[in-house]
Structure formats: structure tokens, C-alpha cells
């Protein structure tokens, strides 16, 4: 079967085609048709492979089969490897050129180090390392394929209408939409690559492509701000890329006889953990595995926009809204958490021992602390934001923090919570971003204050926003259930710092979502509907995503049982004494029933009243329209209501600063850990030990 290769090839070919298409009349059907095709293939592929068995279509022993044509795995892989290396070298030259052009020295330096480093490694060592399986697809990869294929395609289709308005709003410059759609589809192809590769050199290739895609998409408008922010994103992600290359070098040189496969590192790490635990040394990591995991986790942290690197994702909102939706929901940041969650079985830490300085500081410790701190401070930073996209961005950073913290805990139930968070977040956040995009184009602002009475002006859109916001934080909807699961898994593993971060961060989350939700539900008198100007394609996608949001909420217990638990069964198969689901099935079903109850109540009773509707109470006589009252001296006073931002108690800058400093401290500790392991490895090798 070669369907899996189609998932990379089709978006790639479409991307190249779209680069050449200049007219709307041709582009629209191509984007819509290929979006539907990609989604359909993803669903078909995922559904036909869900089962828990790891699917390996490209192995040394079994060869590779492409629609009946089988090829020698090694030869083909070599060809692919060379092609990737050539492209990487070209991309590095491109970065260096752009870095020089825009005077960004750091980008030049990073690109000039990491790509030659990797090429050097491949020439001297990587070439000889045998690879047994190039591609491993487990249920988690399939979940990611569904998210990328379905949500990602939906965002691309939404862009068709949105980008027409966008180029009208930004008229004057050159129409760069062919380039935009090229990047969007290329992004999808690269994401499919990341989630299926077991050969880390290949994964790195796709990883770097996503970095470049986001760089170009963020800088799309080519304003000064866009260029500045795109380079910030590029530099931070290149830093992660450098760590990725270092991880590959360590894998090839110091891991047993050398490997390039993630699966082998995980297997050895898990076995070591079990043996150590049997000898009474719980939470010990094999040093080389620890080193590799730390480097890869660092790469994941930069890509997932965790503090201290969160600023790139906030800067990314200068891009057109579909880009933000794509970066936040189904691609880019999800690649970061995907890698970290993959590593979860070799992570894990116990706070009881790790607070004793120097006693144990491993990758799990780094990941958990960075995630927990990011969740807490990003949530509190969101309190003072009135720009809808910034609220969404901080919420993304915070939720990814929670996912990262769960992965750091490294138990099966914490990973269950992490995967649930990934799913719910992808669906809901894409809905919210796209809603804000449509609102912005129709009311001319993305400020929550200007969404006053949106329920009157854009009733359907406001309903979608209400669904999205509720799903982000309100019981009994998805995200809250995952948070509950996360809390349960933190308690079970005894990580008190993270419990504290979670309870305080959740309280802040409650505040900033509800005050936005309040704005949406406010019934403001006498507004005309302006919804008829929204593109049909936008409605289709928004409605679809809203329906998805509801659907995942009411079907998740079954999805958990059928898909997530089998994955955990494979990933944690060797580790004894585990619970897979953080929540008991009966509780999940009860939550599901409550969700259905809210939906039914809303459908049956919302907006129905037989009561007489009377004017509001105001500080003076209400003039009858609920918008003005008669104040002192018989003056007409218009009423305008503003949300509450608590800047005084939760200043955004300070929240960011504390978070960045705290996470930097942990990164510094980790850096010293990496150095110390590297030195001891080096000494061990010159003494002739070999590893």
C-alpha cells in the first residue's frame, strides 16, 4: 500500500501547482477539491489502520511497496536521503541570503552551523548506520494524520474566501496568493512527514521545512513588523533545529553501535527504566537516552512555543488569520508537542527526589517544569488582553504547556491526557481563530471590545464562537475533561508544583474565557445583521468545525477506548502497573451525558420567552432603546460597557518576564546536565571504554 506516501506527495504536488495558478477562477476549485481529497485520504488511511499495531511500510527487511511496485528499501532510502540533503543545503543558502539581506546575523550563524554539521555527520557517519525501519505509524501518528489532514485542509479551504478579502484590504501590493497557498499545502506535506518518520534524519528534514514554511507565512505581508517577527520565529526554531541535529549526532555516534531510529532509543530507554526500577532506582534515565531526549525535547519546546520561546508565536499573529489557525491548531506547534509526547515513555520524574538539588535532573524534569510554568504564566498573561488573537495565542501557549507537562510526567495516564488535549485543542482552536478572522473582516476589528453585541450583528458566527469558547474551558466539554485528566495524573505521580500551577492557571483561564463569552452572549438592542457578506466557503468550514467540536465532545469516551488506549498499550507495553485512562469510564460517560444535556437545553429553550420584555435599569431614565439614558442636567448619556482586564494585578509584561526567567533557569540547569553527560561520555570514550 502506498496511500501513506500519497499523503506527502499530493499536498506537495498541489502546492507546486498552486504556485503557478494566478487566477481565482482556477485556484478556488483546485484548493477546495484537493482539500477534500487530502481530508478523505487521511480519514480513509487512519480508519483503516487504527488498531494498535505499529504499521511499518518501509523497512530494511520488508522493502517498500508503492501501489504494487516494490523497491529495495535501502537504495530508495539512499536516493531520498540525498534529495533531502540537497534541499536542506539549498534552504540553508536561502536562509543565509535572507539573513544577510535583512541583517539578521543570528539566523545566518545558526543556518551556517546546523546544516553543514548535519551534512558532515551524514558523510562521515550517518551513511554507515543501518536503519531497520524508516517509517513507523502508530495510533498516535494516525491521530495526528487525522488532525493535519482534516483540520489542516479545512483551514486551506477557508483561506480561499478569506484571502480574497485579505488582498482587497491590503490592495496596492503584489498579489502573493499563489505563494501563500504554495506554503500552506507544503506545510501540510511536511507535517505528514514529521508524524510518520522513524528515521530521525528524515524527520529533521520535514521539521526544518515546517520552520521555513512558518517563516515565510509569518512574513507574508512583508511589513517591517512581519519581517521582524518572522525572523524571530525563524531564529528560535533554528535553535531548536540545532538541538535536533545534535541529538541525531549523539544517536549516530554514542548510542550503542549507532542508530538513527527513534523507536530504538525509546525501547532502550524504557528497558533501562524498568531494570533501574527493579533495582530500587526509580526515575533514572539511561545517560545517552537522557541526552538524546533532552536535546529533542528542547527542539520540541522551541517549536511548541513554550517559555522562554513563546514570543515567536505571539508575533506570528501579524500573518493572515488562516496562517495563525494553521500554526496553532494542526501544524507547527503540534509538531513540537508530538515529538515530546512521543518521548514521554522515557521521560517522567518524581518531584520528591528532584527538588533535592543535583539529585536527579533529567529530561522529564526539564519538560515538566517548562510546561507547568508556561501554563501558569501564559494563562495569567491572557487576563489583560483585549485583542482576540492575542487571547487565543496565550491560550495556545498555555494549553501546549499543559500538554508538555503531561508528557514530562511520562505515565500512561498523563500521556492519555496529553493526547486528548491535542485533539480537543486542534479542533477548537482552529474554529476560534477562523471565527475571529471572519469577524475581523466584517466588523473591521479583532478587539474583543468591538465584538459588543455580536450576537445581534452576526448571530450565526457568535453562536460558533460561543461553542468554541465553551469547549475551551467549560465543564462538561472536551478541554476541561482533559484538564481534569491531567490533574488526576499529576496527583497520581505526586508532582505538587505542577498541581499548584494547574489549579491557579485554570482559575485564570476561567476568567479570561468567561468574560469573552459574556461579551458574546450579551443581547444588545437594535443591531442589524451584517452576516450576509461572509463567503460561502467560510460558512461551510466554520459550521463544519463547530460540528466537529461538538462531535468530539460527545464521542470522546469511545475514541479513547478505540484509538488512544491501544496506542498507550503499545507505547507503554513494557512498563508494569499502569492505568491507561486517567478518568474512569463511568465519569467520562456522565460528562458526555451532561454535554448532550446542555446542547438539548439550548436547542429547546434558548431565546423562548412569553414574558413581557422591559427596558433595563440604568443610572438615569432609560430612553427605551437600552443604549442611552437621561443623565444629570437632562443630558443624553450613551451606555458603553467595557470588559475588565486586571492589568494592575496581572500585568502582561511581568507575567511574561517571570515565566521566561523561571523557564530559563530550568533550561540552564538542563544545559549543565547535557554538558556533564557529554563530558563524562567523552572521557569514557578516550579511556577506551566504548559505549
Amino acid at each position: 500500500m502506498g496511500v501513506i506516501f500519497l499523503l506527502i506527495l499530493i499536498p506537495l504536488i498541489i502546492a507546486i501547482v498552486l504556485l503557478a495558478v494566478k487566477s481565482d477562477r482556477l485556484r478556488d476549485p483546485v484548493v477546495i477539491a484537493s482539500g477534500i481529497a487530502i481530508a478523505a485520504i487521511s480519514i480513509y488511511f487512519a480508519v483503516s489502520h487504527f488498531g494498535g499495531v505499529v504499521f511499518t511500510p518501509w523497512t530494511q527487511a520488508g522493502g517498500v511497496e508503492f501501489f504494487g511496485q516494490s523497491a529495495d528499501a535501502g537504495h530508495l532510502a539512499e536516493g531520498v536521503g540525498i534529495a533531502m540533503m540537497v534541499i536542506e543545503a539549498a534552504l540553508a543558502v536561502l536562509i543565509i541570503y535572507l539573513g544577510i539581506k535583512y541583517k539578521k546575523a543570528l539566523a545566518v550563524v545558526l543556518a551556517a552551523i546546523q546544516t553543514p554539521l548535519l551534512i558532515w555527520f551524514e558523510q562521515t557517519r550517518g551513511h554507515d548506520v543501518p536503519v531497520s525501519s524508516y517509517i513507523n505509524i502508530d495510533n498516535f501518528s494516525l491521530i495526528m494524520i487525522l488532525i493535519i489532514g482534516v483540520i489542516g485542509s479545512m483551514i486551506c479551504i477557508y483561506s480561499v474566501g478569506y484571502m480574497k478579502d485579505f488582498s482587497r484590504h491590503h490592495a496596492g501590493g503584489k498579489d502573493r496568493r499563489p505563494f501563500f497557498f504554495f506554503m500552506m499545502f507544503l506545510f501540510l506535506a511536511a507535517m505528514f512527514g514529521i508524524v510518520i518518520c522513524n528515521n530521525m534524519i528524515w524527520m529533521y528534514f520535514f521539521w526544518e521545512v515546517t520552520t521555513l514554511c512558518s517563516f515565510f507565512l509569518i512574513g507574508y505581508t512583508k511589513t517591517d513588523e512581519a519581517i521582524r517577527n518572522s525572523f524571530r520565529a525563524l531564529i528560535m526554531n533554528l535553535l531548536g533545529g540545532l538541538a535536533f541535529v545534535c541529538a541525531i549526532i549523539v544517536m549516530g555516534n554514542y548510542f550503542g553501535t549507532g542508530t538513527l531510529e527513534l523507536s530504538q532509543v525509546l525501547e532502550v530507554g524504557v528497558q533501562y527504566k524498568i531494570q533501574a526500577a527493579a533495582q530500587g532506582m526509580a526515575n533514572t534515565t539511561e545517560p545517552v537516552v537522557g541526552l538524546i531526549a533532552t536535546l529533542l525535547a528542547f527542539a520540541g519546546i522551541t517549536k511548541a512555543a513554550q517559555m522562554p520561546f513563546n514570543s515567536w508565536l505571539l508575533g506570528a499573529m501579524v500573518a493572515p488569520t488562516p496562517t495563525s489557525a494553521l500554526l496553532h491548531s494542526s501544524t507547527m506547534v503540534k509538531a513540537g508537542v508530538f515529538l515530546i509526547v512521543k518521548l514521554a515513555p522515557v521521560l517522567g520524574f518524581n518531584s520528591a527526589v528532584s527538588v533535592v538539588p543535583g539529585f536527579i535532573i533529567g529530561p522529564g524534569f526539564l519538560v515538566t517544569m517548562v510546561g507547568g510554568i508556561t501554563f501558569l504564566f501564559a494563562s495569567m498573561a491572557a487576563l489583560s488582553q483585549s485583542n482576540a488573537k492575542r487571547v487565543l495565542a496565550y491560550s495556545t501557549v498555555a494549553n501546549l504547556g499543559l500538554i508538555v507537562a503531561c508528557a514530562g510526567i511520562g505515565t500512561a495516564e498523563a500521556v492519555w491526557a496529553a493526547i486528548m488535549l491535542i485533539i480537543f485543542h486542534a479542533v477548537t482552536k482552529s474554529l476560534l481563530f477562523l471565527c475571529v478572522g471572519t469577524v475581523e473582516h466584517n466588523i473591521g476589528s479583532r478587539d474583543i471590545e468591538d465584538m459588543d453585541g455580536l450576537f445581534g450583528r452576526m448571530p450565526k458566527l457568535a453562536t460558533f464562537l460561543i461553542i468554541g469558547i465553551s469547549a475551551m474551558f467549560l465543564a462538561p466539554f472536551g478541554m476541561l475533561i482533559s484538564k481534569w485528566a491531567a490533574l488526576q495524573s499529576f496527583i497520581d505521580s505526586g508532582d505538587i508544583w505542577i498541581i499548584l500551577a494547574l489549579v491557579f492557571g485554570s482559575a485564570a483561564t476561567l476568567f479570561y474565557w468567561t468574560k469573552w463569552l459574556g461579551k458574546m452572549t450579551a443581547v444588545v438592542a437594535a443591531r442589524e445583521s451584517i452576516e450576509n457578506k461572509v463567503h460561502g466557503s467560510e460558512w461551510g468550514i466554520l459550521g463544519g468545525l463547530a460540528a466537529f467540536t461538538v462531535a468530539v465532545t460527545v464521542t470522546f469516551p469511545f475514541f479513547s477506548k478505540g484509538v488512544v488506549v491501544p496506542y498507550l498499550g503499545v507505547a507503554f507495553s513494557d512498563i508494569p502497573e499502569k492505568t491507561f485512562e486517567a478518568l474512569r469510564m463511568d465519569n467520562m460517560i456522565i460528562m458526555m451525558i451532561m454535554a448532550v444535556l446542555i446542547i438539548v437545553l439550548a436547542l429547546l429553550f434558548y431565546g423562548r420567552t412569553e414574558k413581557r420584555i422591559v427596558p433595563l435599569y440604568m443610572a438615569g431614565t432609560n430612553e427605551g432603546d437600552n443604549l442611552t439614558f437621561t443623565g444629570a442636567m437632562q443630558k443624553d448619556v450613551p451606555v458603553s460597557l467595557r470588559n475588565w482586564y486586571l492589568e494592575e494585578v496581572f500585568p502582561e509584561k511581568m507575567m511574561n518576564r517571570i515565566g521566561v526567567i523561571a523557564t530559563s533557569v530550568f533550561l540552564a540547569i538542563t544545559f549543565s546536565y547535557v554538558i556533564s553527560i557529554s563530558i563524562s561520555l567523552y572521557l569514557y570514550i578516550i579511556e577506551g571504554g566504548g559505549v
Partner: protein
Amino acid sequence: MSTVLFTFYGNELHVSHLLGAVLYIVLAPFAGGFIAGLDRKVTARMQGRFGPPVLQPFYDVAKLFGKEKITVNNGQDFYIMCSLIFMVISGVFFFAGSNLLMMIFTLTAASIFLVLAGFSSNSPYAQLGAERELLQMMSYEPMVLLAAVGLFMVNGSFNVGDIVTSDIFSFKYLVGMFIGYIFIITIKLRKSPFDLSMSHHAHQELVKGLTTELSGKTLGILEISHWYENVFLLGFVFIFFARGQILYAVLGVAVVVACYFVEILIDNGYARMKWQFTIKSAWIVTLIFGGGNLFVLYYVRTFLQQ
């Protein structure tokens, strides 16, 4: 006493669970209304007044139900109805001995619906009240969750049923949590100095805050919903003491009565503070008493295991 009615995904539903739920649904409004009446009586006496009859809250609500049917918009009643439904559900979880966290999250949902009712009116007073209510929620929420975590760590279960029947005197290990919880139910019971969003006292500058735009039956429903809420907020105090013995149950009830009396005393003894004080004091108390207790618990347990 415990006959298994049926099994629901491995969870046995006993007659006692069902009995608890039914008794709560039927009796809680009466108990809650009665507590509210006593509250007003005791408050009056503290202020040197005679006070209304103890059953006054019931008369008030009965009167509200007979009022003219008016509303400011067609959405508000829906939110208040949802608020009541979810309040009752969370109480049912509690008295049926179900999961404490599930109860807390459902309670949060009920409170959110109340806040939305305030927002939906788009009235200046109600919206300010709604935002203050949110601030109050943000203030008390961490401590409520931590108290549940503490009870779990001591009893090994989140199920209220297990917590009250297990032979562990939770209070002994959770003194800090208990202090923290008592601090935040002052906010939850809307007592001065934390009655920011709405108040029974005349010093409230927001007229009736969150409830400004509610009238008649809807306001009556909200009142009943408060009665339901207060009963299990006090029930939460009780479970710190329960350990499946009559003597401790009596102790629990005595503490609940004492706590409520202290709340009334605080209510009458303080003027309302600024909102900054509410959030800061609540979070600091939560961190010191709740967080501190959690650390002690965890380290003591780890130490004992070694």
C-alpha cells in the same frame, strides 16, 4: 443498607447513593431556605434588631413566583434555568457519594451560567456584577480544587462516599486545607468583606449587582439555586470530619454550625474590601495553607514509606 441497584461501567450504584441524591433534591431547598432564615435572624440579633421570622425566605420566594412576568431579554431565563439544573446536578454528585472533582467542575459550570445571565442583560450594573462574580470565582477556585486533592491524598479516593466511610480522620492531616476552605467559603457564601458581585447589605453600590436585571420567578429560581448550593458547600466542611462513625458525624455537624456562625459574624463585622484584596488574600491563603499542607502531606507520606 447497600443493595447494588445496577452497575455502570464498573461503578456500582447502591441504594444509599440513590437515597442520598433523592433526599438532596427534595430536602436541600428546605434546609437551604431554613439556613438563610436563621442567617437573617442571627444577623438581625447581632445588629440589635428583632429580625424577620425564620421562614421569611420562603415567603419571599413564594411572593417572587407570583410577580408580573417581565424580563429584559429572551435569553436570560435560559441561563438561570441552566444554572439551577447544574447546581442541583453537582449537589447530586456530592450527596450520591460521587467524584468530588466532577462535582466541582459541575458547580463551576453552574456559576458560569449565572455569570452569563448577568452578561446577557447588557445592563451596566448586572455586567459589572457578573465580572466581579468572575473575579470571586477566580479567587476561590484554586482552593476548592486543592481541598479536593488533599482529601484524595488522605483518603485515596475522590469519591465522597469513600471519603466519609473510610476510617481516616481527614481533618487531622488537612488542617491547612480546612483553614483555606473556610476562608474561601466566605467568598462563596457572598459574605462581607467579599460580597463584591451582589449583596444582601445596603452598602452595595451596584444596586443588586449580578441580579439587578432579574425579577419575579427567575429571581426566585436563583434564590432556590443558592439554597441548593449552600447545603453542599457546608457538606464539604462536613466531610473533613466524617469517618463512618456517629460520634464524628456529630462533630462534623457541630463544626458546620460553628463555621456558619463565624461566617455570619465576619459578615457583620467587616465592611466590604476592594476587589484587589479579595483575589490577593484568597490566593495567598490558598498558596500558604493549601499548598503548604499539600507539601507537608506529600513529604510526610514519602518519608513514612522509606
